[in-house]
């Protein structure tokens, strides 16, 4: 594994956190700052991680996917819409409605993946164009339906957007319960600290599953028959073909899997994070995912690490503003969220220059397979 890269990433994250601690300790205990930032980092990284995994599966199989953004957006919308229908029209209880919503998001992602597959594998459309089509289509489709479903003639909701049934609740990992006894009765601080640490692990289902999926994907890609064949198809499809692997099927399957990941990322926005849909709510996070994938050299764990960098730097942004009051004058520019906001983008470009080890895409990435 690429230690140089991971070292670099680790350093960056430490620096980002250190910066905030240095500034914020005047107002807040360092431990609390760190745990809070960790929690934010993980949450913000969730859709990026899933998006990047989407890219990893598609591109390991040889299909470039810049349509992640569109896939996320469409999934976020249809997942949310499904939840609303389940809840208001079919009057299912909240829990079921939300779950169905999440499933719909994933299915939507897979359908978008299917479209991308048909375009780029069957019709052999340039894969970048295919992705662009998906992105534009998603914007139009969601924008139009978001209106039509609620304000259109004969809409069941007669011109008002009903409330979503809600969002997935955080899962409590009982660390405090287990550890706090060790503190002894007379040390509230100790218990508070443990609670703060616990806070980092109290994430919501999709956020947690994203982390699990990172390691599962890594294992699948590099240690199973499926992974071996997927990578073969992305590296040297003809070779795979000659040993009887169906290149087309493998590519379709992996693009669909990629779509499912993008779908889960979409679900994060409207089913886990906030219970409302907004046109364009993905705000370019699909493209950041793409960057994370390359940044992570097309490996799930690498991509995750990269996503965490993006997460950490938006945690930095947020906290720098929260601690605005106590930022020392010579660091005043840090209040300028415009400037702090640039960090991840500049980092990505640095990575792409290959200073920290060259990134090498799968050999047949982006090349349609001709027998």
């Amino acid at each position, binding site marked *: 594994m690429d230690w140089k890269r991971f070292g670099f990433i680790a350093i960056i994250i430490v620096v980002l956190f250190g910066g905030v601690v240095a500034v914020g300790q005047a107002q807040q205990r360092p431990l609390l700052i760190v745990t809070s930032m960790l929690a*934010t980092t993980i*949450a913000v990284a969730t859709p990026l991680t899933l998006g990047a995994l989407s890219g990893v599966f598609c591109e390991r199989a040889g299909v470039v996917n810049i349509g992640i953004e569109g896939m996320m957006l469409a999934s976020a919308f249809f997942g949310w819409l499904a939840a609303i229908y389940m809840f208001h029209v079919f009057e299912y209880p909240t829990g079921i409605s939300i779950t169905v919503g999440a499933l719909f998001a994933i299915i939507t992602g897979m359908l978008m993946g299917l479209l991308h597959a048909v375009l780029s594998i069957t019709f052999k459309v340039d894969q970048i164009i295919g992705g662009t089509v998906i992105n534009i289509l998603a914007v139009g489709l969601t924008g139009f339906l978001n209106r039509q479903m609620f304000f259109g003639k004969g809409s069941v909701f007669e011109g008002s957007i009903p409330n979503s049934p*809600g*969002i997935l*609740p955080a899962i409590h990992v009982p660390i405090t319960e287990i550890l706090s006894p060790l503190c002894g009765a007379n040390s509230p601080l100790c218990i508070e600290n443990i609670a703060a640490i616990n806070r980092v692990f109290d994430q919501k289902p999709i956020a947690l599953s994203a982390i699990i999926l990172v390691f599962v994907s890594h294992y699948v890609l590099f240690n199973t028959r499926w992974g071996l064949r997927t990578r073969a198809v992305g590296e040297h499809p003809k070779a795979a073909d000659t040993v009887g692997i169906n290149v087309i099927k493998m590519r379709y399957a992996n693009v669909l899997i990629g779509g499912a990941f993008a779908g889960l990322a979409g679900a994060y926005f409207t089913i886990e994070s906030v219970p*409302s849909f907004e046109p364009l709510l993905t705000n370019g996070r699909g493209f950041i995912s793409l960057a994370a994938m390359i940044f992570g050299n097309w490996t799930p764990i690498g991509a995750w690490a990269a996503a965490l960098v993006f997460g950490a730097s938006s*945690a930095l942004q947020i906290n720098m503003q*929260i601690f605005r009051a106590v930022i020392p004058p010579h660091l005043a520019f840090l209040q300028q969220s*415009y400037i702090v906001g640039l960090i991840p983008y500049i980092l990505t470009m640095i990575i792409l220059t290959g200073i920290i080890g060259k990134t090498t895409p799968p050999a047949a990435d982006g090349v349609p397979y001709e027998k």
Partner: protein
Amino acid sequence: TPPATEAPTQAPAPTEAPTEAPTAAPTEPPVVEPTAADCPKAEVFCVGLVTDVGKINDKSFNQSAWEGVLQSQTDGVADIVQYIETTDAKDYAKNIGTFGDAGFDVIVTVGFALGEATVAAATTYPDVNFIGVDQFQAAEADGVAGLNFPEDQAGFLVGALAASMSKSHKIGAVCGTDVVPPVWRFGEGYKAGAAYADGMNGTTTEVFVVYHSDVGFDKTFTDPEWGAQTATSMMDNGADAIFGCGGITGNGAITAAAQAGSYAIGVDTDQYLTLPEAAPRMLSSAMKLITPGVAELIAAAKDGSITYGNVFGHAGYAPFHDVAGEVPAEVSAMMETLNAALLDGSVKTEVPPVKP
């Protein structure tokens, strides 16, 4: 619910539209419903609304304004109501013109960004009444009524409320970009209000105010995910009351706060009604009464009593609803007096109209 919250609605409005107004229209022979094509006719009263870059279902000012227009229709003031959604700043003039050419009687333009285009249109269409929501009129322009709101007062009220209710003495506000003056006034008013309350309660409250200025202008009000993360992060730092001021971005913060069990404070309208997922913990909302404001101005336009220049709508704070039980009597009492004091001017927020 505290009587104070009635204040907005019972406030003196531009004189009521005469109830017989609709029927006052001359005996109409055509059995057919009038359509937009009939707007040039004197007896058909048409109201058009042009949104800022954004949608009429934004749960925020575009929507509130549109509801005001719809209300004027249900009140029987307007016969035809239509909207045009702007997709690009360069279309402001054209979109307004579309209604002007169609002979509409009142054109509502929503958002400070349309200010100049509205004033310009007023000269092109002298016999149309324009209502510019959130458009501060530096100089009075004939035909334009700029409907403004003292956002700083609204922010001041909820700021004081939040400061008084906070147990951790840490409160937060998650806002859109401070580039937009009303948003900035909300945020600064919130701080001022908290300070004022501290003075009264002898407490010192830490106020986190974060503006979402680090993205494309079109994104700043539509990033609920960021809003939620920011609110969460504030709560991690001890805040136990979050004010979401800034369209969808704010909604994200409000929901996150409510989900985490902190006090959530809405903006513009009583978001207890528009954000039910946050309702259980919705402490109050900093209200700009856009809907009644617009409806009243439309009525005034119809009976000719409309005044041009700056018209000030009302700010207020929404009822406590579900958490009313948690609000101590003295706090709600303080809020009532404070609201009254702001209305009669005996208390000032000291927030300038625009960011210096």
